[in-house]
């Protein structure tokens, strides 16, 4: 033990191969410094403390410390605000050993700059463009008059039934967005469904209760209901206070909605939006008051509880499709078709990749041929996000 400390003390060497370069894919004002670890960097933190990084404007000038990297690190991003794009800098990496410190040779000059494209995100760009292109193409075709089909979605046909039965029993309808915010996509899908439910309610003169968790969703929902009532020719039925804000606390909200169900005894309940753990509290209470329940959510964790406790459940994407189904205007149908085609392409791609991968595994195992394996690996690597 003493001997090894002695040897390390003697051999304490600076980090080798220090390189400084402009940090790639960034907005400038950042330089990356890399090095190979000092031989003293053995993982023993009593013997080796880490690296200090020094920067200067001139190779011989005054170097000032710009950062510290822990033992074991081989990279440091110097993104201190005083770095000017275009200005040349020099770097030294200092290893802090038990006996003192050792400086590397000077690296540089190097200047930082901003990039115009983040090359690590080519795959994201490609897939985003692919989806966008398909969607826009089908929207155009739909506008041009192509008839596009949407398959039947079970829960949606039940809407009319549920509102009708509730009316017969003289009971109100309850609609909840769960814990959705207005800037989330499912909330917008839910607004479409609410519009339809509100139309039906206006038609049957049934009271519609919509308790809220988020004030912005409340505003949008109030407007939606008001508009649907107006379109159905019953603006007189609308009462803003039937869709009150309760609280922005998850279980405060659940307690409030439960109480509302126990006292108002709705005949039909719609759970459409994003739900967390309160899903089952709500759905079980809904069941105990004997309401028909139609749920729809994209929160995969909660779908099982709705499936178990409700009469109908729109599973995940079905909720988005529902908003297209209910408002079958060409643009919505077109985008749904584009989405489906993307899905089809993903499926074909997955199947193709599986064939390629299998061929790769078999050919390298039985024939020692690695070409297909390498190709498959490259395909997989293309999907790296970092």
């Amino acid at each position: 033990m003493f001997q090894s400390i002695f040897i390390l003390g003697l051999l304490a060497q600076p980090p080798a191969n220090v390189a400084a370069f402009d940090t790639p894919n960034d907005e400038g004002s950042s330089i990356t410094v890399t090095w190979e670890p000092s031989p003293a960097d053995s993982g023993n933190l009593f013997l080796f403390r880490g690296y200090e990084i020094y920067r200067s404007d001139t190779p011989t000038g005054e170097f000032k410390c710009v950062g510290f990297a822990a033992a074991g690190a081989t990279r440091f991003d110097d993104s201190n605000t005083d770095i000017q794009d275009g200005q040349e800098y020099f770097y030294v990496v200092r290893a802090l050993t038990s006996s003192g410190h050792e400086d590397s040779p000077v690296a540089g000059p190097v200047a930082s700059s901003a990039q115009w494209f983040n090359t690590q995100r080519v795959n994201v760009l490609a897939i985003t463009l692919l989806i966008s292109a398909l969607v826009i193409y089908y929207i155009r075709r739909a506008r041009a008059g192509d008839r596009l089909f949407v398959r039947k979605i079970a829960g949606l046909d039940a809407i009319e039934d549920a509102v009708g039965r509730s009316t017969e029993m003289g009971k109100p309808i309850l609609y909840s967005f769960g814990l959705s915010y207005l800037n989330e996509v499912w909330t917008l899908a839910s607004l479409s469904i609410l519009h339809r439910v509100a139309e039906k309610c206006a038609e049957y003169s049934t009271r519609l209760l919509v308790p809220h968790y988020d004030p912005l969703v409340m505003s949008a929902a109030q407007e939606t209901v008001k508009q649907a009532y107006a379109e159905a020719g019953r603006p007189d039925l609308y009462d803003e206070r039937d869709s009150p804000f309760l609280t922005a606390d998850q279980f405060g909200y659940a307690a409030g909605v439960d109480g509302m169900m126990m006292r108002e005894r709705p005949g039909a309940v719609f759970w459409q939006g994003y739900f967390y753990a309160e899903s089952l509290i709500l759905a079980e209470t809904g069941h105990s008051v004997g309401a028909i329940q139609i749920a729809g959510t994209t929160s995969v964790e909660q779908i099982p509880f709705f499936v178990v406790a409700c009469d109908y459940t729109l599973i995940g994407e079905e909720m988005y499709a529902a908003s297209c189904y209910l408002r079958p205007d060409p643009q919505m149908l077109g985008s749904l078709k584009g989405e489906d085609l993307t899905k089809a392409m993903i499926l074909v791609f997955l199947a193709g990749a599986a064939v390629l991968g299998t061929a790769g595994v078999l050919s390298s195992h039985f024939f020692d041929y690695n070409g297909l394996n390498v190709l498959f690996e490259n395909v997989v690597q293309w999907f790296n996000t970092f």
Partner: protein
Amino acid sequence: MKRDIPLIITFLTGFLCVIAFFIPHPPFGDLQQRFLVWYAIVAGFTMILGLDSLVKYNVKKITQHKPGWQYSYVLLFGLALVLVTGFQSWFKYNTPFELRSSFMYSYIHIIVPLQATMFALLAFFISSSAYRAFRARTFEATLLLIAAAIVMLGRVPIGEMISDKIPLRSDWLLNVPQLAAKRGIQVGVYLGGVVMSLRIILGIERTYLT
């Protein structure tokens, strides 16, 4: 004009966030960062809307003597209590979150037990819904039942006491078929989300502007 300006705002902000994702060069990153900060500020103002609605709803209940109107007093009392203690603690300790403050006292002895108990109701509800719904009525329902039973046993020590295969089966169910199903649903959901975002940015989806 009433309709176009909001659509233009949505398009510009949405498109900027997409651009800033791909182009690191200034000014996009700075602009996006500024917008994100603004967004956080704007979100804060929604509390006024919420408060307004909650108070109006309960005041109406009280003045019109709707069923259960007495309880609206409890609600408004709770609201006032927290607001008063909150600002009082703020004034006294310079932050409402000083653990000795009256505000934190109400947090710990009122909000925490209420939240926790409300959540704990789930233990009962999940048992009754499992009992009611897990009937082997159809082939699919039977699958649901069996998978649930294996995982329920596999995740607790007693499962391993019965047979050391149970935790392994349960882990396999979670890691393989469960994972495949979730991934299938989620890829669909996220694709739907991407397309919906696209529709919003392009101004096709405008339900939020009704």
